[in-house]
C-alpha cells in the first residue's frame, strides 16, 4: 500500500458513527487516474477543431481612466487578423455574475465602453488565424487615456471625497439591503467591553492571492450543425456559465451547450464567467470556432484573486479566559467590480466570530471597491483570511493571559445547542474533539477536565474556568 490514507480515530463519536458500509469508507482508485497517467484525459484545450480562430485581449494599461480614439487600423491590417470586437459587439455588455441569484446591480462591462477601472480591464478582443498574429495585432492597438484618480486602499476608498471606482454602485462599497456593510448584531459588545477584565484589539491584513491552477482559464467555442454553440470550457460550474453567457449574448438558453468537467485545477478561479461570453460573440460573428484562453500573465495578474482583507478584532475577555464580547470590522478588497465578493463578504459575516460561543458579537463586514483587479471566489473565501485573524487573536489572548492556547480554545469552543451570533443553534459540532485529538497527536498534555470536555454537552464548570 503506497498511498496515504490518514487513520480514522473511531473512539470519538462512537455512538454516532457506524461501520456497516460496504463501499463508502473504503479506498477505491480514482476513476480519472488512468486517463491522467496515460495522457488520454482530454482537457478543453486538447480539442483542435479546424479553422480555429485565436482571441487575444487588448487590456487597459491604466488603473483608472477614460479613453478615446481607440485606433484599430494598424491591428486590422496585420496579416491573419480577422476581426476585432469592441463593446458595441456585445449584445448585453453590462453584467454581474451573481445576478442569477438576485444580486445586483450589473456593474461590469464585458468590454470597456469608455472607462477602465483596473490595470488589465479588457477593452477589445482581437481574432486572428494564429496566436502570434493576434498578439502582434494587440501590440498595434492604440488608445488615448485621460487618467482619473485611483484608490487602492480599502479604508481610503471609504473616506469622504475618495474617487468613485465604479459608478454603477455610486459609492465605493456594495450596499446590503440599504446598509453600507453586512452586519451582525448579537448582545451588547459595548457592555461586554465595559465589564471585561481585559480588552484586546489588533489588526490583520492579507494581500491578494492567485489560484494559480496549472491550467489557465479558457474555452473553445465551436458552432454546431444545428446552429447552436458548443462551449468546451474549464468552468467550475457548467450551468452557471451557460446561464450567464446566454444573458450576455441575449440568446435563448438552449442555443448554448457547455461541455466540460475536466479541469486543470480550479480553486474558485473558474467560477467567474470571463472567457465564454466574448468567445461566443466572436464565434457567432465569424461563424468559426474560437479559442480564448488566458496566458499565464493574464491568469496571474488579470484573473480575479482571493481578496485582500483587513480585519480589526476587539475582544472583551475575563480573567479566566472566557471571551465575552467580540467586535470585528472587516474590509474585503473587491477590486473594481463586484463579481462574487458581495457573497464572500456575507459568508465571512456568517463565519464570525469563529467557532467559539461568545455572548456579545458585533460585525461590520464591508465589501469595498478599489482600482485593482477584481477579486472573487477562492477556496474558502470569506473564511480563510478570517481564520488567520481569529486564530492569531486567540493565540495572543492566551499569551496575554499566560494560558495554554488549547485550553483557551476549549473553554470558548462552541458546543451543540449554543446559539451562534447569526442566531442558528449549533449542532454537529466537534471543535472540542479535534483540539483534543491534535493535542494527543503532538503530546500536548491537557488536564483531565479538558480531556473530558465534549461537544455534545457543556460542562458546568466551564463558566468558572474549569
Amino acid at each position, binding site marked *: 500500500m503506497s498511498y496515504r490514507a490518514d487513520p480514522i480515530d473511531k473512539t470519538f463519536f462512537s455512538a454516532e458513527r457506524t461501520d456497516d458500509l460496504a463501499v463508502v469508507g473504503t479506498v477505491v482508485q480514482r476513476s480519472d487516474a488512468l486517463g491522467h497517467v496515460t495522457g488520454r484525459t482530454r482537457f478543453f484545450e486538447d480539442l483542435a477543431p479546424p479553422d480555429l480562430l485565436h482571441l*487575444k485581449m487588448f487590456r487597459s494599461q491604466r488603473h483608472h481612466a477614460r479613453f478615446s480614439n481607440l485606433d484599430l487600423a494598424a491591428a486590422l491590417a496585420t496579416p491573419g487578423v480577422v476581426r476585432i470586437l469592441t463593446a458595441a459587439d456585445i449584445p448585453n455588455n453590462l453584467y454581474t455574475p451573481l445576478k442569477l441569484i438576485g444580486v445586483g446591480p450589473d456593474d461590469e462591462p464585458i468590454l470597456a465602453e469608455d472607462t477602465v477601472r483596473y490595470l488589465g480591464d479588457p477593452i477589445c478582443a482581437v481574432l486572428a488565424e494564429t*496566436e*502570434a*498574429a*493576434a*498578439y*502582434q495585432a*494587440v*501590440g498595434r492597438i492604440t488608445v488615448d487615456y485621460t487618467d482619473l484618480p485611483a484608490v487602492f486602499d480599502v479604508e481610503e476608498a471609504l473616506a469622504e471625497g475618495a474617487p468613485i471606482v465604479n459608478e454603477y454602485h455610486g459609492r465605493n462599497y456594495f450596499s446590503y439591503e440599504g446598509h453600507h456593510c453586512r452586519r451582525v448584531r448579537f448582545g451588547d459588545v459595548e457592555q461586554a467591553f465595559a465589564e471585561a477584565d481585559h480588552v484586546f484589539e489588533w489588526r490583520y491584513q492579507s494581500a491578494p492571492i492567485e489560484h494559480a491552477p496549472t491550467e489557465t482559464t479558457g474555452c473553445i467555442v465551436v458552432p454546431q450543425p444545428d446552429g447552436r454553440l458548443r462551449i468546451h470550457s474549464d468552468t467550475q460550474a457548467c450551468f452557471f456559465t451557460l446561464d450567464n453567457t446566454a444573458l450576455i449574448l441575449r440568446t435563448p438558453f438552449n442555443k448554448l451547450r457547455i461541455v466540460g468537467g475536466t479541469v486543470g485545477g480550479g480553486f474558485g478561479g473558474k467560477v467567474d464567467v470571463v472567457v465564454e461570453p466574448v468567445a461566443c460573440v466572436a464565434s457567432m460573428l465569424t461563424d468559426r470556432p474560437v479559442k480564448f484562453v488566458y*496566458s499565464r*500573465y493574464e491568469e496571474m495578474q488579470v484573473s480575479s484573486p482571493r481578496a485582500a482583507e483587513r480585519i480589526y478584532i476587539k475582544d472583551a475577555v475575563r480573567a479566566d479566559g472566557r471571551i465575552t464580547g467580540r467586535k470585528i470590522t472587516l474590509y474585503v478588497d473587491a477590486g473594481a467590480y463586484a463579481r462574487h465578493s458581495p457573497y464572500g463578504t456575507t459568508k465571512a459575516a456568517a463565519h464570525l466570530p469563529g467557532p467559539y460561543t461568545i455572548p456579545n458579537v458585533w460585525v461590520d463586514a464591508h465589501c469595498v471597491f478599489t482600482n485593482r483587479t477584481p477579486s472573487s471566489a477562492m477556496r474558502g473565501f470569506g473564511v480563510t483570511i478570517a481564520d488567520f485573524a481569529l486564530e492569531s487573536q486567540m493565540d495572543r489572548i492566551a499569551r496575554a493571559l499566560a494560558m495554554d492556547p488549547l485550553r483557551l480554545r476549549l473553554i470558548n469552543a462552541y458546543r451543540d445547542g449554543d446559539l451562534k451570533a447569526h442566531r442558528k443553534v449549533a449542532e454537529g459540532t466537534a471543535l472540542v474533539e479535534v483540539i483534543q485529538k491534535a493535542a494527543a497527536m503532538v503530546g500536548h498534555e491537557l488536564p483531565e477536565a479538558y480531556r473530558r470536555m465534549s461537544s455534545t454537552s457543556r460542562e458546568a464548570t466551564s463558566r468558572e474556568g474549569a
Partner: protein
Amino acid sequence: MITAVRVPASVDAAVDLAARGGWIMGGGTIVMPQVNTGAVGDIELISLRRAGLGGIQPDGGSVRIGAATTLAEVGEHAELGFLAAAVHAIAAPSIRNLATVGGNLFAPQPYGDFAACLLALDATVGIAGPAGPRQCPVDELFRTGPAAGELVTSVTVPLPPAGAWFFHKAMRRKLNSAAIVAVAAVVRTDGGVVTAARIALGGVAPRPVRAFAAERSLTGRPLDRAAVAAAGQAAQADIDPADDAYASAWYRRRVLPVHLRRALLADPPIG
C-alpha cells in the same frame, strides 16, 4: 512575429546572419518566453544549437567552455566540479538542460547566477563578430554589452586554487529560485590572511557586480568573522538593489552581510 528561425552550422554563418539583425538564441530559455507572449517584433531567431559552440576543454590552469554548452553539462563536468553547487542552484534540471553558458550572461537579474560566478572567476569571453573574433574580460562585457552583430562563442575560466572558491545563494525556496543575494568569490589566503579577493554579487544590482569595497576591506585581514562582517558593511557601497517580486531592496541590503559571511565562512546555523 518571428519571420524565420535560422540554425546556422558554423560560427561564421551565425555571424553572417547576425549582421542582418535578428536575435541570437542559446537554449531558448530567455528568448522563447518572449516569443510565446508575442512580445517581439518581426525578427529572425538565430539559434546557436548547431554552430559548433559546445564542448568543455580543460587547458592547463583554465577551462574553455563553448557558449552553447548547457548548464547541465557544466554541472556534470569533472574539471568544473567546484561550480556544481552554483549550477545546482540555478532554476531546475529541465531548464538547465536547455539553458546555455552564453545565454546566462544575458539573463536579467535576479537571474544569471552563473554570470556572477564568471565575474568572480575573472573569466574571459570569446566573441565573434563582423570585425572578427576577439577576447574580452567578462566584466567589460557586462559594462559595454556586445557590439551589433556580435555573439559570444566561449568563456574561459581560470581554475581557482584549492580552497579559494566560495559560492552561496540566498533563495526564496530551497530549489528553483531567483537570487535574493548570490555571492561568488575567489579569495586567496596565505597563513589565514587574505592576499587577494575577487567577489561578485548577484541579485543586488541591475547586473552582476564586483564588490570592490568589500574586496578592499577584506584584503590583508584574516579571513574571520570580524573581517567578513566589515566586508559585509563595506559591500553596501557596491550594490544597487531593487524591489521585485522576490524581495525588496531593503531586504537585500539588510541580509547581504549575512550571506557574504555564509559564503566565506562555514558556520552552520546553531539549532
